[in-house]
């Protein structure tokens, strides 16, 4: 029983991070119908900047309690990724807004490689350890262990997701986003500044990616320039699983993928087939529900 609970907790921790990253994919897809493959790299940049910022603070002799140090680091990293997200949209996607769908996909991959290589130049390619500012003592809960960082990851992810839901459902900006997502030209005619809404979508998604990146680095104790690739791919899978373009879908898909991986490797298949199993579930879901678990729009827009 305690083993099962442990596997569920493992799944929830990694699933919350997938969900946060998946939100970035799904928001951009919902509005532009493009897949922002550079999103995983934005997450990596967020983690690397935070790491550098914390080390800078330690170097400058600043002594704050651990969580405050990390917070200070994140506060410095978020604006960097926001600017990055803004620039990616301006440089790689906006000029191609009316180009065939394949063109922005190629620029996305290009930007992704570019960011990774720039990160190698700046931070070198060997992994960096996360500064030991957070206590990682496990707490026993019904025979399963969880650390303070992991509890924080789950709580923080849930509150950020609720915040985003509120933003999309209740605010003026959210209404504008939904309008652009339904029909950009009509939204423009109704007085919505489409370009501004799209820019803001990228900026918000990138901020979430930075937070997810820091969670990832803090939980696994390391960060490197290639760290964005795998979580990026998994989060994209999660977004598709939940129904890409749907904010609820990204959250459900992320948590579900985390659980599938953890329980799959724990009970159902040999651990080397963990990813195979996760993708198998994805294929089955897509066969039965081509638009994902919570996806609604099946018909392609003309």
């Amino acid at each position, binding site marked *: 029983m305690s083993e099962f609970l442990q596997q569920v907790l493992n799944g929830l921790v990694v699933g919350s991070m997938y969900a946060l990253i998946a939100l970035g994919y799904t928001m951009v897809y919902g509005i532009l119908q493009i897949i922002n493959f550079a999103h995983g790299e934005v997450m990596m940049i967020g983690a690397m900047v935070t790491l550098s910022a914390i080390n800078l603070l330690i170097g400058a002799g600043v002594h704050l309690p651990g969580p405050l140090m990390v917070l200070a680091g994140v506060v410095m990293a978020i604006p960097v990724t926001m600017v990055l997200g803004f620039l990616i949209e301006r440089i790689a996607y906006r000029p191609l807004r009316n180009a065939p769908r394949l063109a922005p996909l190629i620029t996305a991959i290009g930007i992704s490689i570019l960011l990774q290589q720039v990160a190698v130049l700046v931070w070198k390619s060997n992994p960096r350890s996360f500064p030991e500012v957070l206590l990682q003592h496990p707490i026993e809960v019904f025979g399963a*262990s969880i650390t303070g960082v992991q509890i924080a990851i789950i709580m923080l992810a849930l509150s950020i997701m609720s915040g985003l839901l509120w933003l999309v459902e209740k605010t003026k900006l959210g209404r504008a986003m939904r309008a652009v997502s339904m029909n950009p030209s009509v939204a423009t005619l109704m007085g919505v500044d489409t370009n501004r809404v799209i820019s803001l979508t990228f900026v918000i998604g990138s901020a979430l990616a930075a937070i997810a990146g820091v969670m990832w680095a803090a939980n*696994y104790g390391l960060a490197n320039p290639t760290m964005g690739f795998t979580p990026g791919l998994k989060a994209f899978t999660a977004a598709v699983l939940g129904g890409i373009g749907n904010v609820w879908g990204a959250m459900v898909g992320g948590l579900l993928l985390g659980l599938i991986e953890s329980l799959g*490797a724990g009970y159902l298949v040999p651990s080397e087939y963990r990813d195979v199993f996760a993708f198998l579930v994805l294929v089955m879901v897509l066969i039965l529900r081509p638009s994902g678990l919570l996806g609604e729009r099946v018909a392609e827009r003309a």
Partner: protein
Amino acid sequence: MTLTRVGVLAAVLALTACSKQGAETAANSTATSLTVKIGHVAPITGDQGHLGKDNENGAQLAVDDLNVEGITIGGKKITFELMKEDDQHDPKQAPIVAQRFVDAQVVGVIGHLNSGTTIPASAIYHAAGIPQISPSATNPVFTQQGFNTAFRVIANDVAQGAALAKFVAETMKAKKVAIVDDQSAYGKGLADEFEKAAKLNGVEIIAREAGDDKTTDFTAILTKIKSKKPDVVFFGGMDAQAGPLAQQMKKLGLTAKVIGGDGFQTPEFIKLAGDNAEGQYASQPGTPKDKMPGYAEFDKKYRARFNLEIQNYAAFTYDAVRVMVAAMQKADSTEPAKYLPMLANTDYNGVTGNIKFDAKGDLLNGAVTVYHVVSGQWESVATIAAPSAVQ
């Protein structure tokens, strides 16, 4: 028309130049001195450049020493020249470099540094009949291809796996071991060898799990392993995975010790494993450097010559060059075909210890040293002579 004439003229000139050069070489060989080229190759540029340059320096030091000592072979005074190449630890680049050596008619090659480059290049050296000694490639395949030109002066992963298994069974007295690997040629290869040897030593393998060489989340695997209560977790892979693995073990309350090979016997592992680095084990082929017979003196010489600290394999590279030249001396010839049989029968006391080869070209009785982390530093705990029968 004019072009063709120029072309013909150039060809004629080139021919003249060639024959002139040929005459010079002939003159040289009848004279009392001869220059002989030995090739050295390692990744000199890129992220392993520091290791490659270290090997190259070791080889250069050996060549310099030999030239100062003055070697006479076949009645001629030999001047050795090191031809230095860079394979960028790229398996595709390795055969190109190998062909360059063959074309330059080197009498022997010291290299490559990595198993991934050593193995593809070895076929080219074998076809050309040029002896090759790797100072650092540990993958068993290198010497299992049936090439009589392939040698290494370092214990291979069969020996490393066997030594680790012996240590786990006899020193750690572990009964139940879980094995995790990264599915890479190195990691899985070493884990397989360890598993075989551990079973022979009466250790029960209670789980065999795997991530890949990019995995950072081992929690699902470790949770599964924890329920089987292992005494030791063996990891076949590199430090970037071993670090998080050790950290996650602590978070899950899994108190078993971690042990593995040279892939994470690095300072990097200690940083990445954080507060669970202390007391973990990893091995490295060779005896501890402070116990190698000529190491202190070599270290001093190296520092004086290059004003650098030794990274890893410089002493092995130094020995590789000396072993090769010793075989030439014994055969009284620098011709590969003539000194190759002598190289196979090497019995040489080098900086790193005694060097003899078995029938396949592996180091005979190669030692493996197990280290553990004590107050944030790797310290040697035991040196295990690998039983050659296992190879």
